[in-house]
């Protein structure tokens, strides 16, 4: 049984400008100890997918319209607020994109790092403090005994992300959701933070969901990849399989736009057009307008189904987007 099994999740935001279907029928699963990537452009629904499972989207205007999300056999979507709260920060933790704003500037770092212990394990300050110091030491922060008394603005960006990691891992969670953990950091720091996440994951045996728009990061860290576009899952496969044999036109476009894979001196490839407005999206393949290869073949009357074309390799069955000759 997978640790997390999401089936057919649907999330919508009811705004003044209409209903925005942010997540439409997404299914994905995470095994114990596995690292799973969710890749997509901004607004593709990758963050909303994870936030909605944990009850972290504002409701209203957000609403979960269907699906299940079984975590260790229990459906997160059917839990009460209090039950979800008991899981958040204890069995499922999160780290966020911008370490500058994700830590509370008015609280000492130590108080923030030990807060999950105090809430979930009922430890008093004196009991939690040594654990917080140890956690900070484990993520490579020097002089943790002094640093716990400092405020976040006294830390650099990379150091703050280390604090976030220490804080989210202090309760030894079974699942860590990392939402673009390296996007706001310098390139040199990015690698360190990714390595640290992997190192902590191995030490604690946790599973990780890595949300990112960076396929290069995915290829380095993940075991399994889900590609999202316009609130839908377009392709998912083990990482090796996906990079060897990308089947969906969107996945291939994404790969072509990785700068490192492009010939030197050439113009950088970008996907033409903009992601569609999810409030106005009708039925049919959502990628058809931007599909430079065979957009004219895409489905227009109904949403493409997901088919499994190889063990563990699933893709949207749209004639215009699937690689020619194989569909």
């Amino acid at each position, binding site marked *: 049984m997978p640790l997390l099994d999401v089936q057919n999740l649907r999330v919508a935001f009811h705004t003044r400008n209409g209903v925005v*279907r942010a997540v439409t029928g997404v299914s994905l699963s995470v095994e114990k100890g596995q690292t799973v990537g969710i890749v997509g452009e901004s607004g593709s629904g990758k963050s909303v997918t994870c936030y909605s499972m944990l009850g972290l989207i504002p409701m209203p205007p957000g609403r979960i319209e269907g699906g299940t999300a079984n975590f260790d056999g229990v459906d997160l979507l059917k839990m009460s607020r209090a039950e979800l709260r008991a899981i958040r920060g204890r069995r499922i933790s999160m780290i966020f994109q911008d370490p500058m704003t994700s830590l509370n500037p008015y609280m000492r770092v130590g108080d923030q790092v030990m807060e999950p212990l105090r809430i979930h394990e009922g430890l008093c300050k004196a009991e939690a403090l040594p654990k917080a110091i140890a956690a900070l030491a484990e993520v490579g922060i020097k002089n943790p005994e002094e640093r716990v008394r400092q405020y976040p603005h006294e830390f650099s960006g990379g150091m703050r992300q280390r604090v976030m990691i220490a804080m989210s891992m202090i309760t030894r969670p079974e699942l860590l959701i990392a939402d673009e953990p390296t996007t706001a950091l310098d390139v040199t720091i990015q690698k360190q933070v990714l390595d640290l996440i992997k190192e902590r994951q191995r030490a604690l045996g946790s599973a990780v969901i890595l949300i990112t728009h960076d396929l290069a990061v995915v290829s380095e860290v993940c075991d399994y990849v889900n590609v999202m576009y316009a609130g839908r899952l377009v392709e998912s496969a083990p990482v090796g399989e996906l990079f060897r044999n990308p089947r969906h036109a969107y996945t291939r476009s994404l790969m072509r736009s990785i700068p490192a894979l492009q010939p030197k001196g050439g113009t950088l490839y970008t996907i033409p057009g903009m992601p569609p407005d999810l409030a106005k999206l009708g039925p049919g393949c959502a990628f058809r307008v931007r599909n430079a290869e065979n957009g004219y073949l895409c489905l227009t009357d109904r949403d493409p189904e997901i088919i499994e074309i190889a063990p563990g390799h699933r893709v949207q069955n749209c004639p215009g987007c699937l690689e020619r000759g194989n569909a």
Partner: protein
Amino acid sequence: MTTAAATASGEIQGRSLWQDAWARLRRNRLAVVCIFVLGFVILFCTVGSLLCNWSPHVTNLDLKAKPPGYEETLDRETWLRHKYDDLAPEEEQRFAQALKAGEGPENVTLRHWLGTDTLGRDLLARTMQGGRVSLMVAGIATAVALLIGVTYGAVAGYLGGRTDDKMMRFVEILRALPFLIFVILLTTMFGTRLWLIYLSIGAIEWLTMARIVRTQVLGLARQEFVEAARSLGLPTSRIIFRHIIPNVLGPVIVYATLTVPAVMLLEAGLSFLGLGVQPPQSSWGTLISEGADQMETYPWLLAGPAALFSITLFCLNFAGDGLRDAMDVKTAKD
């Protein structure tokens, strides 16, 4: 967070920031209603005063404190008295001429819509005239505050560095002074003159304005278009007034709208203490003060002016809030 809700439809055609702000403001129904009510209040106090048959100054001790709706029958002379105000000497002549020429109706019955005050003056006419004074004081004092504050703040922000430090330290010190005390001292010691009230209230309110403008300009002065203007050899004064100040108009307009009610409150407070507008002139503050004295016996003396004053304040505040939201301005928190 990369919610899909964030990817709203991009506007294609060019729209200036002002058009954008206007569109947002129009959607805020309450703010629009408030702006209309304000326009109506201003018309009421200006045009309404011209249309009114009653003079705010003519007393009639036989008709002391009559309730709203009281009807008075006027002979020709009294009617002309009301038409030709008895304050200015040349009005007196015109009154005499009109009386001789046989102008006006012989006997006419008119209604005191808001009743009369303790000297038998028409309360509606007085409320209009008082409103005119209140609005004028508010307008002129705000203009004084704008003039000083914008200039001072723009200069400090543009020059920056140590000059800015010194200039803003001075503002901070002034802000700590109990200014209302000085206003009261000025008006009691040197006589209650209307221009003194304008000046002293303006002198309080420019401080916050200077701070807001300075913060804005500090950011603008470091931007490329100012650099470009400087490289063209434009004089500093021209850069400040032609290139920088137009760019801080948004916050200035918003803050000015919110300054007007504050000034009106100050003026009314002073008048309430008897230190503001002096008789026979009146303002909403003096009317409310008179009304509060007679509240138990003649409640309508308080009701009319107080209601109008509160409605005006309410609308000014709401219109200011609406403008702020529409222009997406962060006002300083004090």
